[in-house]
């Protein structure tokens, strides 16, 4: 299959089955683009997640554009982004035009209740997979615990702090640790 068509169809499939926002989609992209199609490596997926989180816009679009550009330059980026958007565009357009009481349809509501269960599981699964493959140095482990604890507090007490603040702090700590390590190695080299 030509790569542009492949990109378009693959991301249309991901778009069709992504519920509940970007995090749940990480599992789908990992499964399709890393494990099956081998378009990107797991490590790239991790970097991509960081980039998608720290740039504006829907995470799904960030991911589609990234993978598309990597496999097919600008046409590839357009094909995969269009693929990502088209299914939901058609579905939402039809609902808004023709179905005024969509969420009141019993089986739709029940199906969505079921899907919500899957979304939680997929998000945890994505995190666990990443944690398994992480280099387990003390700093990494401390960082995971620190961010998990902060996120827990922010969500449970409904504090008005964006996860962007956590990420900025994490980037800052990463740089500080790097600078300190460098200085210590410099000292050692002098001796």
């Amino acid at each position, binding site marked *: 299959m030509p790569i542009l068509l492949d990109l378009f169809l693959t991301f249309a499939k991901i778009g069709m089955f992504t519920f509940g926002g970007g995090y749940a989609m990480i599992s789908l992209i990992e499964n399709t683009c890393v494990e099956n199609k081998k378009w990107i490596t797991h490590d790239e997926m991790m*970097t991509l997640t960081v980039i998608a989180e720290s740039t504006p*816009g829907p995470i799904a679009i960030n991911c589609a*554009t990234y993978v598309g550009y990597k496999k097919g330059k600008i046409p590839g980026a357009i094909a995969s982004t269009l693929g990502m958007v088209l299914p939901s565009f058609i579905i939402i357009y039809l609902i*808004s035009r023709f179905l005024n009481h969509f969420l009141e349809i019993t089986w739709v509501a029940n199906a969505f209740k079921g899907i919500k269960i899957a979304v939680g599981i997929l998000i945890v*699964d994505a995190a666990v997979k990443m944690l398994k493959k992480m280099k387990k140095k003390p700093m990494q482990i401390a960082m995971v615990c620190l961010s998990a604890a902060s996120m827990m507090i922010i969500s*449970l007490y409904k504090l008005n702090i964006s996860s962007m603040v956590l*990420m900025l702090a994490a*980037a800052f700590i*990463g740089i500080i640790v790097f600078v300190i390590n460098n200085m210590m190695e410099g000292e050692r080299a002098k001796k």
Partner: protein
Amino acid sequence: MIYLDLFIGFLEVGFFSFGGAYAAIPFIKDVVTAHNWLDEEMLTYMIAISESTPGPIMVNMATYVGSEKGGLIGAAIATAAVVLPAFFIILLIMVAMNKFLKNRYVKAALSGLKPCIMGIILVTGVLMILKNCGLLFNGRADILTIVLTCSIAFIYFGSRLVMKKGMNPIMLICLSAFVGIVVYAF
């Protein structure tokens, strides 16, 4: 001019919403109410629709508001506007990427960012499951949902021991939608 309004409004949303749709919802609410596009009740309904249909939530919201206000063309314009900033920013990063990612300080920042994101994602998932089961924020424990969550998780993770690759996420979504339709009907 509604088309121009939609375009600029959702360009703003696409440009200033960091950290995914849930973080962006309050911001989208502001933009929509500032333009008087939807009333409070419609807004709540629109958010519920966007969350329960497939696709990126922010894109769903743009399509919905665009379609309500400007028909098919409005929907297309709002959707394009919400997508464009992310599209171009990623392209820009990709073009500069190789140099950018090899920078020592960028690498150092990434080494802090990666574990931080894993923590955020893990907690988001765990809290979502707990909340869904009614175990958070003074909710009433929903025994049926707890049982379903455990069984579906058992099947999903268990399938990896039995089958070579295990169930894929799409199979999981279909299974849980089916289980929802059957079980919650009673």
